[in-house]
């Protein structure tokens, strides 16, 4: 306790010294955030202690509602900061000129965490913590159903996991979007979608909220969830019987903070950013209810023993350099493809996946070349994509989503085409798989 308050005092001095005179009139700082009370309360407390005279007014909205709110109220803006995880939400705000650039003065912040740059290259938002994606599972569920423990993404595509996995839709969760994009960039467009659909065939649900996944795993409604790490860590902190693993291919994604354009209290907003990046601000992230990965490498010295350290741990170094530009250019296409090929076609996709698992089991007992060939054909049909990587990033497709002049068709038309494509392929695949099963038995 004493140590903490001594630290806080030190940091107050640090902050005041670091950013000079701008601090006299901090006053009320209004922040729109998607972070939960568990995260904002300790940070608010520490901030108000570190910067005397400042009060943090927290408006809790989910990321989408927050973006909408700032957009709708821009004419008469009352908000100083936007504070959330998903970098793409910041990209949207930046694109609409709703953020104002600020370059933090704090030193000793890492340039990159994993393979992802911490700060926006144009200086409109700054990363203050990192989180990585992985697999969490409910131990009681796994034990009761005699299921295996996963290590890699590909494990989730195996037969035992059928109907036990949950994910949030990438169109609804910025972080899931980045996970899918990581797979696509790591394995290439066609192979990446094949992997994604293989896993998707085992899905129990595609939720519409990021938190829906840990919620379902915690209460034991599904066995495994593809989640961002702090959901699992804070669930463990709350006492739920859950475990978590980072697969060897994961992305670390920074959680960000940015000053809203025309902020009524710009100085206060900047003070808050400096606080978040200060040693004491970074240390608050280690609290059990928060559990984010600091972007200040030295802070890890104060972390508990088993705390993941992206600057040291081998598996968190990141195998691939994330291409943010490529990702951004095809965001809408990737999200819509996922929805139309997977979310809204989950039943036919699961039906054929189930049969294919049975074929595999039968083939293991007694091989049959013809059945194996048919099963492969079925898998190829499932993996087929209505558009190529080049098309996904083409101006025609982009314009269909933005309403630009180059569009060749409207978004609704594209969606219908892709859905019809998927339905046809899955139906054909089911026929092949059924035939294979007959032969293999």
């Amino acid at each position, binding site marked *: 306790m004493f140590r903490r308050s001594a630290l806080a005092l030190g940091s107050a001095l640090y902050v005041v010294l670091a950013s000079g005179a701008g601090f006299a009139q901090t006053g009320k700082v209004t922040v729109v955030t998607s972070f939960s009370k568990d995260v904002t309360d300790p940070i608010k407390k520490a901030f108000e202690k570190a910067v005397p005279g400042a009060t943090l*007014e927290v408006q809790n909205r*989910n990321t*989408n509602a927050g973006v909408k709110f700032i957009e709708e109220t821009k004419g008469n803006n*009352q908000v100083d900061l936007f504070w959330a995880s998903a970098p793409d939400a910041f990209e949207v705000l930046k694109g609409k000129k709703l953020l104002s650039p600020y370059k933090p003065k704090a030193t000793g912040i890492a340039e990159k965490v994993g393979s992802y740059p911490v700060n926006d290259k144009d200086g409109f938002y700054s990363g203050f913590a990192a989180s990585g994606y992985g697999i969490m599972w409910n131990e009681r569920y796994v034990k009761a159903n005699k299921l295996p423990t996963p290590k890699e993404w590909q494990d989730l595509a195996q037969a035992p996991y059928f109907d036990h996995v949950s994910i949030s839709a990438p169109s609804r969760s910025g972080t899931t979007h980045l996970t899918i994009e990581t797979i696509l960039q790591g394995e290439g467009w066609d192979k990446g979608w094949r992997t994604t659909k293989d896993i998707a065939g085992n899905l129990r649900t595609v939720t519409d909220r990021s938190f829906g996944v840990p919620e379902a795993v915690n*209460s034991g*409604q599904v066995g495994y969830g593809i989640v961002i790490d702090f959901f699992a860590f*804070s669930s463990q902190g709350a006492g739920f019987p859950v475990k978590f693993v980072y697969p060897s291919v994961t992305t670390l994604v920074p959680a960000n903070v940015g000053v809203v354009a025309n902020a009524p209290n710009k100085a206060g907003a900047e003070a808050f950013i400096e606080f978040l990046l200060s040693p004491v601000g970074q240390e608050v992230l280690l609290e059990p209810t928060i559990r984010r990965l600091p972007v200040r490498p030295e802070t890890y010295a104060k972390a508990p023993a088993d705390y993941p350290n992206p600057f040291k741990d081998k598996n968190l170094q990141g195998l691939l350099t994330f291409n943010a530009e490529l990702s951004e250019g095809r965001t809408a296409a990737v999200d819509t493809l996922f929805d139309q090929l997977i979310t809204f076609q989950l039943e036919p996709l699961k039906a054929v996946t189930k049969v294919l698992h049975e074929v595999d089991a039968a083939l293991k007992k007694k091989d049959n070349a013809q059945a194996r060939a048919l099963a492969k054909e079925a898998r190829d049909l499932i993996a087929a994509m209505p558009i190529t990587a080049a098309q996904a990033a083409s101006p025609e497709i982009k314009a269909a*989503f933005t309403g*630009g002049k180059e569009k060749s068709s*409207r978004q609704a038309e594209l969606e219908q085409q892709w859905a019809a494509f998927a339905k046809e392929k899955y139906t054909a695949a089911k026929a092949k798989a059924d035939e294979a099963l007959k032969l293999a038995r």
Partner: protein
Amino acid sequence: MSSIRSPGQIALALAIALFLGVFLIVPVATVVYVAFTEKGGGGLTLVNFLDFGRTDLFVRSFWNSVYVSAMTVVWASVLALPLAYLTTRFEFRGAMLVQTLGFLPLIMPPFVGAVAMQLLFGRNGSVNLLLDEWFDFKIGFMEGLNGVIFLQAIHYFPFILVNLSAALRNIDRSMEEAAQNLGSHGLRLFRRIALPLALPGYIAGASLVFVKVFDDVATPLLLNVKEMLAPQAYLRITSIGIDDPMGYVISVVLMLVAVATMWATALVMKGKDYATTQRGGGGLARRQLRPREQALAYAVVIFILALVLAPHVGLVLLSFATVWSYSPLPDGYTLAHYTRVLGDSSVYIKNTLLYAGLAATIDVVIGGAIAYLVLRTRLAGRQWLDWAASTALAVPGVVLGIGYLRAFYGVNLPDGAPLATLWIVIVLAIAIRRLPYALRAAYAALQQISVSLEEAAENLGATKARTVRRVVIPLMTGGLLAGFVTSFATAAVELSAVLILVQSNSDAPLAYGLYVLMQTPAGRGAGAALGVIAVLIVAVCMWLSQLAVDRSQRARGLDI
């Protein structure tokens, strides 16, 4: 009859039209006009509606929604009829308690209610874990469209219960006595006399259930059923990047369905007269049940209540649970969640009571006035007031919230703060969203009152205003109160529009506090505790108003 267009009536109609215009039509129009434009181009077009018809997903979703809504009306009726009938028609100890408890399912706090239901009825909920252990099978209570019907019927049957009970209470007992004198009794008496006379109440409740289920987002999404119309609209409107007109097109379709439903029910009721003149007796005669009948009646009531209150039992368990995961019951029990929320929640409770109370009052006043104008005057276009108010049922909460920001955020108060930051804006948004409930209740109540009573009053020299005050309003009390209670209770847990409009924690109602808690694993128990508190508050208010209804019946000379 009252066919004169008095200046007072015209002024009233204009005032209501202005209110609906400013707080419903304009804000919604600022958002949904997108449905009539092509993305990127400014011109008006209907091409988006063609796209709607050409997209399999939307068509499939539309029919799914129709099926679910219709089946929910059926099952909700099955649940509501015995409760309403037994508690109003018979000498039934605990009738008031049954009425109060039967209303609670409507008050399911957002998010946490869903978790509680999953823990009880989910694939690995208590019921299925026990079934699996004892009999080796599971029941998909919460699977697919039938799961949605199951939960919606439990959730919304109180609409039918409340309106039907109010209607049954309003039936003149002399009607029954006359039928009895002519030799009718038992089920036939109920089928031929009580039920037809109570039809306005039943229709009011059933149409609300239909439209509400059609437009509900929360329950389908909790079950991960996305292929219904309202979830499709919600997902599209609230996803970043997928900002296309189709979400708003679906919203327009939802509103059209709501209006069409109200129009169709008006058509069904057209040309039928449900009014009865004599009010002295007030309510059906209550019959004594024979012992065997009584046992059966209690068994039925207890079974239904156990079913519909199961989610609340789950909620209470959750609020005391330490950890509850993949087990029939929690691992242990604690008071920690209540101590955690008690400090925060007093401001939430105060705000909730204030907002829901004000909103429900606005609803009853405006709903009663619209019902009066539609049923008792000949003003041109009076039906439009009804239809306009009814579309509020179908406006997605997010659309209304965004509309309010667009319409009112640019307007500054004298001190420079935007109008939309005032808490009263939250009240207005809630009032608009809950107006249809009070309106339907008032409408049904007025349909049961014979015009001849008012004519008599006017013949005796009373002015129109005095007639309304001394005759119409007292006779409508039961119905208006039913409307108030429904609006109040559901307003207390309203979230979707609130989430967009809340500007600071000190102005936030309970539902917002709950939402904030429910986004974290550690907040689950605390959220449940807050949910229990919300339900308790509403239940107490409910019980008090039931008490008031009973008192007023007693005062009208009904021996209970």
